[in-house]
């Protein structure tokens, strides 16, 4: 900005802002901290905080702000040039297996589970599964927009693939995911999660599971590819250090495997295109589609009500961090029922859901102050909406646009957006009429074949 500046931040974010200030080139930025949190606190309490002391430094907050804006700069504060960073070494220091395993845990290089140590021989074997050069840059990844993006090569991705327990034949899939530049550990306090859906011949080639327990821990390809995404995010994408680059307050168990599963293409009703075809790829191509979201519910509703109406009702009252994206993951038996009810394409069902799903009144009015004022002034249709009461449903859909949080940072990837914010995916073993509702939204689909 070019003028003296003091950021005022709540104390819980000290580690994060110190790290970001360094990465943005202002290592001595004069920060002032207040008690945490300040959201929704009454004015009197905010004043008490501000008239009190900085919980990190112990200095009076107001005086500290003024000092930050007036105290003369040191020679270091005025420094230019490059800040020191430890150069990256290709190999770690030789050590015993036990010490190296401990080194990986203690330096936050794992997901907390045992890893396969990435010896050069194992990495070389992994690299044989792609025609791409080990030195080729695959992409860039950051914990979220304010954080710095790290860059990584084919070899660096192979190191993490070995650690995850993946077989070499899975490597092109892992490279495709890495090429999207989408971290699975977004820094947000909201405990974001990721999902990868596979389509095309790769499903059969790798023996991936799209049948019974498709989303569960029953298949090496499904499991290790998903796990590898988290290792890549931590080790190659500069993400996943709690307090510094990861602030998810409660964390998300989906991050272990990132909901990685193939669509059961042979279970799609006639006329329902596989996801990758919906995203513009040929049916014969192998593709991974990347989603982001937070939560996931597994549902069946054994009543005479048609399943498409049950899904519509669920979606209407579904409430999570997001309010504008959803993915319905259906067992093939449910897909058949929905198709039999007259929805001959996925899009027709998604459009039906978007058009027929209203918004609970309490939720609607909380986010629409302007409309509430109009309603109170008798302006239609808002006045009629208000008459429905707090427990009514306003006939306006929340699912009208596709938002993407944690947008991939790799500029070389084209990001096709969904034509609808509601996605339909079919997977599962057909043992019962279950479906899963989630707030996941499509971010990008990338070719796996490109990385063979």
């Amino acid at each position, binding site marked *: 900005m070019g003028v003296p500046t003091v950021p005022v931040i709540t104390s819980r974010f000290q580690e994060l802002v110190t790290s970001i200030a360094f990465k943005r080139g202002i290592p001595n930025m004069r920060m002032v901290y207040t008690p945490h949190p300040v*959201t929704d606190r009454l004015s009197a309490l*905010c004043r008490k905080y501000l008239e009190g002391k900085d919980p990190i430094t112990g200095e009076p907050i107001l005086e500290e702000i003024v000092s930050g804006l007036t105290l003369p700069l040191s020679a270091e504060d005025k420094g230019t040039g490059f800040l020191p960073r430890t150069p990256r070494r290709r190999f770690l220091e030789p050590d015993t297996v036990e010490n190296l395993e401990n080194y990986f845990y203690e330096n936050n290089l794992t997901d907390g589970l045992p890893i396969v140590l990435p010896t*050069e021989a194992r990495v070389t074997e992994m690299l044989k599964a792609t025609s791409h050069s080990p030195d080729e840059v695959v992409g860039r990844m950051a914990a979220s927009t304010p954080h710095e993006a790290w860059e990584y090569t084919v070899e*660096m991705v192979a190191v993490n693939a070995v650690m995850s327990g993946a077989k070499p034949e899975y490597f092109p899939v892992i490279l495709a995911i890495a090429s999207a530049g989408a971290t699975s550990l977004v820094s947000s306090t909201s405990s974001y999660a990721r999902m990868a859906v596979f389509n095309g011949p790769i499903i059969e080639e790798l023996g991936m599971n799209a049948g019974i327990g498709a989303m569960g821990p029953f298949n090496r390809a499904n499991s290790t590819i998903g796990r590898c995404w988290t290792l890549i995010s931590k080790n190659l994408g500069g993400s996943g250090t709690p307090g510094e680059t990861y602030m998810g307050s409660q964390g998300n168990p989906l991050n272990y495997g990132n909901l990685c599963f193939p669509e059961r293409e042979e279970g799609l009703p006639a006329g329902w295109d596989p996801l990758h075809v919906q995203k513009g790829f040929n049916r014969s191509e192998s593709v991974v589609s990347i989603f982001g979201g937070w939560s996931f519910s597994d549902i069946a509703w054994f009543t005479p009500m048609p399943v498409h109406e049950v899904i519509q009702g669920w979606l209407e009252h579904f409430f999570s961090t997001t309010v504008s994206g959803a993915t319905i993951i259906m067992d093939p038996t449910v897909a058949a029922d929905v198709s039999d009810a007259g929805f001959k394409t996925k899009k027709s069902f998604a459009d039906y859901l978007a058009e027929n799903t209203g918004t609970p009144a309490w939720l609607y009015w909380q986010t629409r102050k302007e409309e509430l004022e109009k309603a109170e002034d008798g302006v239609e249709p808002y006045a009629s909406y208000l008459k429905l009461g707090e427990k009514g449903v306003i006939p306006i859909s929340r699912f009208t646009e596709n938002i993407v949080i944690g947008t991939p940072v790799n500029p070389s990837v084209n990001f096709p957006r969904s034509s609808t914010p509601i996605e339909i995916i079919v997977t599962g073993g057909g043992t019962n009429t279950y479906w899963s509702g989630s707030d996941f939204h499509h971010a990008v689909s990338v070719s796996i074949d490109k990385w063979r």
Partner: protein
Amino acid sequence: MKIRAGYVTLAVFFAAAFSPVFAQTSSEKVIVMNPRGMKPPIRQIPMAERPATLEGKTIYIVDTRFPRTRKFVEALVETLAERYPETDWILKDKFGGYMDDDPKLWADTKENAHGAIVTVGH
């Protein structure tokens, strides 16, 4: 019988000595590859020169519009104005949500203010 037992012992010994499991003793050192990616270089930005005093100066208090923190920002303006009445404390709303950039406001700050306080979250 004794000869057969001897062969068995020998076979077990060789199997143990040359199998990958036993060949690597717990004290033997191995070399593994670095799983970390490449961090970008960081060019230091020199901090802006400070005035000796804020008396008679204009300071912008920038609300980055983190949800539900407006009361805090207003309290910040009030408490500073009460404590330091010789300084002009002006509340400025940044454009968009808390993640959006606002180059116009930064240009305004550089041109019309002597300093800024930026509130960030949470």
